[in-house]
């Protein structure tokens, strides 16, 4: 088993421009079931051997899609997410970066009460190795297995997965939740899913400075993940106060969001902290 997605997930791609086409093709090559594309005005055109639709409503009716992979450019991305919510897509994965924070506030408000989960934005997506790759991560570094990975970062996740795979430690599902201040899904929901997934035997959490998501994650680790080893790494231990480190969410502001507080909370909850980013894989190995 895995969480969020598997070989049966039917994916429609919102935003079929250059980036969307390139990455959707990589997903298809990995074995993901891409069932169509959505791009206003391009209805009827072919997209990777599947049809393109003008609206999500049509796409869902025709393809039975239950997942959307969003590449729509930032100014229009919030509208694309609202359209996916309106079509009651179960899993909406938004890769787009640079969406205004308050757009996500409105999207989250619209998502309340709907049977939908949004992952991202500004994230690499979700992969259940050997089953489905729904995102922009390089598929070949992954290995099917039993370590769940959840992260706010993209390439640092690849780094982690690479280390795990080199050590022969495969992954159940890897989830990038994104680096923005407001995201669709937090560490908490992903950790709860890993806690309930019998195929996930250990969990890696990659956090970074800013916000209090890691502190909330610590509470879940303490309550729900006592039976599975958890390894954590927090990036930005040397970042200065008040400076945004690339990700819109990665800033230590008003005395909150420092790495030391996050590390203390995670350690107190029973997680093992990787001493540096080069030893995340080996720290997992030592806990298994």
């Amino acid at each position: 088993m895995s969480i969020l997605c598997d070989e049966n997930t039917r994916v429609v791609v919102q935003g079929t421009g250059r980036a969307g086409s390139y990455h959707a093709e990589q997903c298809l090559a990995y074995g993901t079931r891409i069932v169509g594309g959505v791009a206003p005005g391009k209805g009827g055109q072919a997209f990777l051997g599947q049809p393109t639709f003008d609206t999500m409503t049509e796409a869902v009716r025709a393809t039975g899609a239950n997942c959307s992979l969003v590449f729509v450019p930032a100014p229009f991305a919030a509208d694309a997410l609202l359209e996916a919510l309106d079509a009651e897509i179960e899993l909406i994965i938004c890769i787009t970066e640079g969406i205004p924070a308050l757009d996500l506030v409105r999207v989250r408000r619209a998502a309340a009460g709907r049977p939908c989960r949004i992952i991202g934005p500004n994230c690499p997506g979700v992969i259940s190795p050997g089953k489905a790759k729904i995102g922009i991560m390089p598929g070949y570094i992954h290995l099917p297995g039993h370590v769940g990975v959840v992260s706010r970062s993209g390439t640092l996740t690849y780094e982690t997965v690479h280390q795990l795979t080199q050590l022969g430690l495969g992954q159940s599902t890897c989830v990038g939740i994104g680096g923005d201040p407001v995201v669709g899904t937090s560490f908490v929901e992903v950790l709860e899913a890993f806690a309930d997934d019998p195929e996930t035997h250990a969990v890696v959490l990659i956090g970074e400075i800013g916000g209090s998501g890691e502190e909330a994650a610590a509470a879940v680790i303490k309550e729900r993940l006592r039976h599975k080893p958890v390894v954590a790494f927090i990036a930005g231990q040397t970042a200065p106060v008040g400076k945004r480190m690339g990700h819109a969410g990665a800033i230590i502001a008003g005395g909150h969001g420092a790495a030391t507080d996050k590390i203390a909370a995670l350690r107190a909850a029973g997680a093992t902290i990787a001493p540096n980013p080069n030893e995340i894989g080996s720290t997992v190995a030592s806990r298994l």
Partner: protein
Amino acid sequence: MNLHEHQAKTLLRPHGVRVPPHRTVLRAGDAERAARQLIDETGAAQFVVKAQIHAGGRGKGRFKEDPELGGVQRVQSTAELVRIAERMLGRTLVTLQTGPAGRTVNRLLIEPVLPIARELYVAAVLDRVAQRICVMACGEGGVEIEEVAARAPEKILREWVDPVVGLGAYQARRLAYGLGLRDKAAKGAAEAFVGVARAFEQEDCTLLEINPLVVTQTNDVIALDAKIALDDSAAFRHPSWPDLLDTAEEHASELSAQAANLAYVKLEGTIGCMVNGAGLAMATMDIIKSFGDSPANFLDVGGGAGKDRVVTAFKIIVADANVRGIFVNIFGGIVHCDLVAQGIVDAVREVGLTVPLVVRLEGTHVEEGRRILAASGLRVASATDMADGARQIVTLAQPEHAAPASGSEAATGR
């Protein structure tokens, strides 16, 4: 992007937040005319002069060249106003937030003095946990709010804004009455709170703080100070924003990085870093620190970095005089290692290389990337993983190794 106080006040006014009448001057020679206009408008006799820099603590701050003088001055006459303007403009103001180097004061805000009865605090922030705008108000204004939060957190009242309906008038009243305000002052404060929430939302702020929000002796409620930071991601729907940018307040290197779409933050250390991805870039800074040195910068070349971006990034790093060594750490996902390698080679050929360079490549097209670096003839040390790379660059950047490392005849750019 951070705004100056006078810009923040101008932005707030149309949203129903009352601000004092004001003028800004860039030259002391203009101060007299500004004062005359304010006298005609308001009948004011006394003024307050405020240095406009992107840092707090201006009142308690002192000018380097004029240690008796603070960044906020009350003056009794037009003549005194001109004298103070002459002493402030072009001088360096050092506050708790500027660091010891201070900031050059290039413009002044001039306002009439208001008769203050009470000072309040109001701010709006994006509450990441609630995923909503939160309006915070406190009956103790003019002081450090962090200090109040630590000492008496119950004194800070909060209301959350439903994005569909905005801050309800009832919520604004709850704040105003909660602060002990009555009658005209309560009504004025409630209007200001609604305006703060609306401005935050419509102007795409990431921070909006009014400290103090004052109640005057006539029970008018007026923003005496204002601090606003804007969400850079929303720039596409605010065509006037480029006019608000004060380039004098930003590091030149950060501005050129911004123009090239690179996420760059100048830091105080000596190891220049070029990394793809914000998380990996922060982790790279951390690992350099763990080997006993400090990063000169944060630099994320981005997910889709091509050769040109790598060249630009490299130029920005070598332009920093503090840099004693460069560590390139790339995990190629979307980014292809061969393109990065070619970018490094091109950049070194163009701008030269006078400090050691360590490159760690992993991921997509890594073999090709390593081959390009090896075949280039450049003195580039190759690392097997990020710890190995950090160890090497920290060693090579020590003063005893600091001899020029450029082994390429082509590296003649300097």
